[in-house]
């Protein structure tokens, strides 16, 4: 009998312990799911059940088409109101997974005679799927270590702000379901690899297909799994299990992914997908070589074989290079390329660079989104290295790659979060395994293995995996255990407070509705966006074209139901530049552009009165820059600065700036609001000019400004500013 640090009941049968543990696991998972869902409902409680931000409005609109007209109508949907007058073939240019998921849920509930509004399904989809994500992470981590680590990982990902930021109620975006699919596909891949099972490989392929249909980030899986396979081959860990798992996943996954119209033939014709194809080929070669080696014993032949494999591999690689060069294989698209060459986007695709979620990540964002997981993460990676089974390699590769990506783009923090949670859970669970184990080692007894696992130690709920304890010894005393355990509990509870705080303050604002706090602490809802959109919807002709900057395109389409020139789909740079040009030109030059595009209404967001910093004047330089990219002769960024190189809006503003349509529309009669006093722009803290006259013929072009005098937001601290900048810089 080994000595125990604290008493453990001995009269329990193993079956009872097993069943109780299983019940506890189920209950804990259920509670974690509940917590994951509940922590995403701040936005509904503080505001309302509404679709957030920009892209979700398009998804919501598409889902409504799907729900009301059926799948085939949706598939063939040509939207003439977007990108007026070009239109947009929606069915072929979206990842339909999200809409299809909501549609299926909607039809299912309808069939059960549960009349749930499609909007509520859309709003609550992301929280619902976060519960699934927690479960998938549990399954994944269970494969890495054991159930207790799995539960910790599930709890982490359930409440980690890094994932919540993209999955609060109402943020109806592709990422809402994609992270679940990502984790579940990874789990299935690990499972397939472990068992060498074609069945799991096929299920992984099916979920991969779902992922392809749901999110452009599927490319991460497309490259992550091949890299894992490649590293395994290089480490000499090739096995038939790997072969079966990879081939079944790749063949079925690729074929099915090509069924998504938006993806089409990309899996065989673009660089992003070539890695997977190359590894597929390499696996065949290696498998063939292994087969031959097992049948032929001649050493010379084996040498020859090795050379042949290398030669064929090299040949394949050069063929790929050649095909890329001749244009048969498309090179990396700008979005992916900018991940490697970080200066690329700013130079050549300012639209990508202008989006704030494509900005690099400073360390406070990491800490804010993941807090203590941030430093448990490297500890977990080290522990993975200690064991280094095949699946641990996956975590390691994932960790290194995604931490680079997350550093380059704020948005990719989302892909980092799962691996950080998994890795941190491994670290913390290993720590707890050691310190909750009641068995005390014998003092001064050198190099004697742990007593055989039998009796009460086995019954202890925290049975560490046999491998990890065999090389270690154990902890003496009870106080040492308590210190570490309490320290851990304290950190965990701090983590919970942190997550709640971050979620409720930074990530739960719908951005369609703004809240500001008055002096007395009462909350004011600033609903000017919807006021303008609803007015457009109710009181303009149905085919009245509305011009605005592309940020508002989806919202206008979704809420005002009117044609727009440009929207957040940003596929046509020239069209966006046209709008930029119209906004930054003088009225005489802008008017013909507006007429040519049948524009009847111009929507401008001006926040100078209430201090809303995300307004159009602050985005104006990007409009100028993008317009300059297409018409360098007519629009020049430097003309919008004062001679001293400052961006000013007051009397000192440059002439070009003062004459621009955007400027005039923003400040038109602004000074009148202040009576005789000096008008102050609260965003830029400058005196606004007087006597701005707008000469546009009012008959055709209406101007609406969001200029209701509300109290300026008092509580908009850094946290909030951070979340807003997430959208646009």
């Amino acid at each position, binding site marked *: 009998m080994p000595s125990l640090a604290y008493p453990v009941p001995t009269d329990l049968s193993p079956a009872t312990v097993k069943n109780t543990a299983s019940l506890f696991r189920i209950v804990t998972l259920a509670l974690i799911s509940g917590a994951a869902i509940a922590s995403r409902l701040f936005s509904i409680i503080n505001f*309302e*059940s*509404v679709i957030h931000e920009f892209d979700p409005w398009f998804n919501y609109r598409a889902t409504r088409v799907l729900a009301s007209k059926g799948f085939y109508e949706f598939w063939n949907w040509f939207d003439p109101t977007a990108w007026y007058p070009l239109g947009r073939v929606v069915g072929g240019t979206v990842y339909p997974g999200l809409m299809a998921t909501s549609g299926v849920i909607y039809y299912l509930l309808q069939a*059960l*005679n*549960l*009349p749930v509004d499609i909007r509520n399904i859309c709003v609550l989809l992301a929280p619902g799927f976060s519960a699934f994500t927690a479960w998938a992470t549990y399954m994944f981590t269970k494969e890495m270590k054991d159930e207790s680590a799995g539960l910790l990982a599930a709890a982490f990902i359930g409440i980690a702000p890094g994932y919540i930021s993209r999955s609060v109620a109402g943020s109806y975006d592709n990422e809402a379901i994609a992270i679940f699919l990502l984790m579940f596909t990874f789990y299935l891949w690990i499972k397939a690899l*472990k*068992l*060498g099972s074609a069945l799991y490989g096929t299920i992984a392929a099916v979920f991969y297909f779902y992922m392809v249909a749901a999110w452009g980030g599927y490319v991460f899986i497309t490259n992550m799994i091949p890299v894992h396979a490649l590293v395994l081959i290089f480490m000499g860990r090739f096995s038939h299990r790997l072969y079966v798992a990879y081939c079944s996943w790749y063949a079925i996954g690729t074929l099915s992914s090509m069924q998504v119209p938006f993806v089409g033939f990309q899996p065989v014709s673009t660089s992003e997908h070539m890695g997977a194809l190359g590894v597929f080929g390499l696996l065949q070669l290696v498998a063939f070589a292994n087969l031959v080696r097992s049948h032929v014993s001649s050493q010379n032949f084996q040498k020859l074989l090795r050379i042949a494999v290398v030669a064929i591999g090299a040949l394949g690689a050069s063929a790929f290079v050649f095909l890329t060069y001749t244009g048969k294989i498309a090179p990396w698209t700008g979005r992916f390329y900018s991940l490697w060459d970080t200066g690329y986007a700013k130079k050549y695709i300012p639209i990508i660079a202008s989006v704030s979620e494509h900005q690099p990540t400073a360390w406070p964002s990491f800490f804010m989104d993941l807090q203590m997981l941030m430093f448990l993460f490297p500890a977990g990676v080290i522990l993975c290295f200690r064991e280094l089974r095949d699946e641990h390699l996956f975590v390691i590769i994932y960790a290194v790659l995604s931490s680079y990506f997350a550093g380059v783009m704020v948005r990719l923090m989302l892909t980092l979060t799962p691996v950080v949670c998994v890795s941190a859970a491994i670290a913390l669970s290993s720590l707890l395994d050691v310190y909750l184990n009641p068995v005390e080692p014998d003092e001064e007894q050198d190099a004697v293995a742990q007593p055989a696992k039998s009796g009460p130690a086995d019954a202890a709920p925290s049975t560490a995996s046999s491998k990890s304890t065999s090389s270690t010894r154990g902890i003496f005393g009870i106080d040492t255990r308590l210190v570490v355990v309490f320290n851990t509990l304290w950190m965990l509870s701090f983590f919970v407070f942190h997550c709640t705080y971050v979620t409720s303050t930074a990530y739960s604002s719908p951005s*369609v*509705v703004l809240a500001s706090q008055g002096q007395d602490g009462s909350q004011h*809802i600033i*609903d000017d966006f*919807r*006021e303008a*959109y*609803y*007015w457009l*919807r*109710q*009181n303009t002709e149905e085919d009245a074209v509305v011009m605005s900057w592309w940020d508002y395109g989806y919202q206008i389409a*979704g*809420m005002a139901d009117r044609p727009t020139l440009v929207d957040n789909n940003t596929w046509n740079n020239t069209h966006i530049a046209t709008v930029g040009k119209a906004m930054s030109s003088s009225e005489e030059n802008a008017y013909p552009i507006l007429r040519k595009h049948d524009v009847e209404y111009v929507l401008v967001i001006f926040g100078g009165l209430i201090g809303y910093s995300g307004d159009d004047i602050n985005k104006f330089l990007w409009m100028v820059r993008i317009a300059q990219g297409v018409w360098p002769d007519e629009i020049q960024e430097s003309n919008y600065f004062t001679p001293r190189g400052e961006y000013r809006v007051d009397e000192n503003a440059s002439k070009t700036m003062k004459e621009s349509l955007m400027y005039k529309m923003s400040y038109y*009669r602004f000074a*009148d*609001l202040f009576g005789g006093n000096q008008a102050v722009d609260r965003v830029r803290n400058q005196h606004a000019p007087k006597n701005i006259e707008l000469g546009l013929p*009012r008959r055709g072009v*209406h*101007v609406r*400004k969001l*200029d*209701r*005098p509300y109290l300026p937001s008092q509580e908009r601290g850094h946290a909030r500013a951070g979340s807003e900048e997430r959208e646009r810089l």
Partner: protein
Amino acid sequence: MPMKWASVPLALLLSVTSALCGSSSFENTAIVRTVELGGAVVHVTTTTALKTYTVALGKADREKTSLVEAKVKGQDKLLSYTERVEKDVSLFDVTLPKPLAGNKTVNIVFENIQTHATTPWPETAEQRDDQGLKYTTGLFVLSPYSTLVQRTKLKALVPRFKSYTEPKNVDAFVGDAAVTKAGATVVYGPYKDIPASTNANFIEKYQQPITVHYYHEQPVLEVRTLKRAVEISHWGANINTQDDITLYNAGPKLKGHFSRLEHQMQGYMNKPAPHILPALNLGLPPGIRNAYYYDTIGNVSTSKLRVAPLAPKGAQRSQFSLLELRPRYPLLGGWNYSFTLGWDAPLESSAAYDKKTGTYTVSVPILTPIPGAVVTDEELQIILPEGATDVNYALPFPALSAEIGTHVTFLDTVGRPSITLRYKNLTVKNAQDIYVTYKVSTLAHIKKGLNVAAAVFILFALGGIARRVDLSITPRKKKVQ
């Protein structure tokens, strides 16, 4: 002050004397027609004797009329009538409560409510302009009988008239002046000794349209469509009412563009433009819960609700819960705004159960009055609990159409009976209750619970079976680590 905007109440007071006992001939001793200018409602009062008395309405007036009521002055009881349509006039034969003796006089109030009777003039106005409305009616109150004295009073809310028609060719009847204006009232008449006037001869010779052009300081509101769904739930002891309302400002259309700055200045100076509707006050039933107000794109946060407590059982109707409803944007002339308004109320506040017959009786209001507004089209759907039988209903006034259908909603299996009623041109006067009676058996009450329980049980059973059946082709091997 009752705000009667989109309707013009018009009261016609007729003093009728029967000239000959036992004959069907009458003489109107005095007719006073009062038109309360605003939107469109007309009151007409007549006095007569004998079995039936006939009131006439000109063709144009008849077209605008949405409600006709007749009573004896000073009595509440409505008199029944039948309508005959002739070439130029509609004749209403009103049945008197008791025959009028010879040479006796009775005062009959003949009331009709006209909707969509006014037109904004000028048709467009700038934000700071006044709102002028035009109302047109016939000069003479037509009657198949001769009339001793007749007057038409047109009352506006404010004593400002732009113009009114000077009648022509009326010297034969006029005593002092054909038309006079005093304060907020324009009076045509008194005209004396008018012969029976429903004949084509008279109409052609003397009848003429008179138009009043007056200022109106409230917005002219029209509810273009109102879809009310009332759902009765016994499980929740709840009656849910939901209105989908399309509101339209029928005042002069906005000329130029809206300036919020100016709108706010008007607010500060307490001189709101007459045709702008910034907010609307509605009286909802007392004791309501979970009131909601949203439109196509989400919740509208600019409303205030003060819930009045429910009156104790048996007491007279208590006061209303006051909802100050503010559209997303101020509603200017020619602008639309559609929204949804709904609330829950305890079922016991509007339902009664008769133990003897096992019948439930529920009262359902046809509409929530929006002061002065006319409801052009209404569709009222009353959804009864699943399994309700013996459905009957009593209407306060006939509907255009009424049908009983099935409505399938929350976890229903066979659906719920629903009554769908359609109305046109309703006003505040029509805000009355419909009484619905039905029976629900105990089995029907618990059916839903049983269904759900059975479904969940089957699900668990299937899950249990699936877990215990091994479907693999080869016997399962131990996991390979």
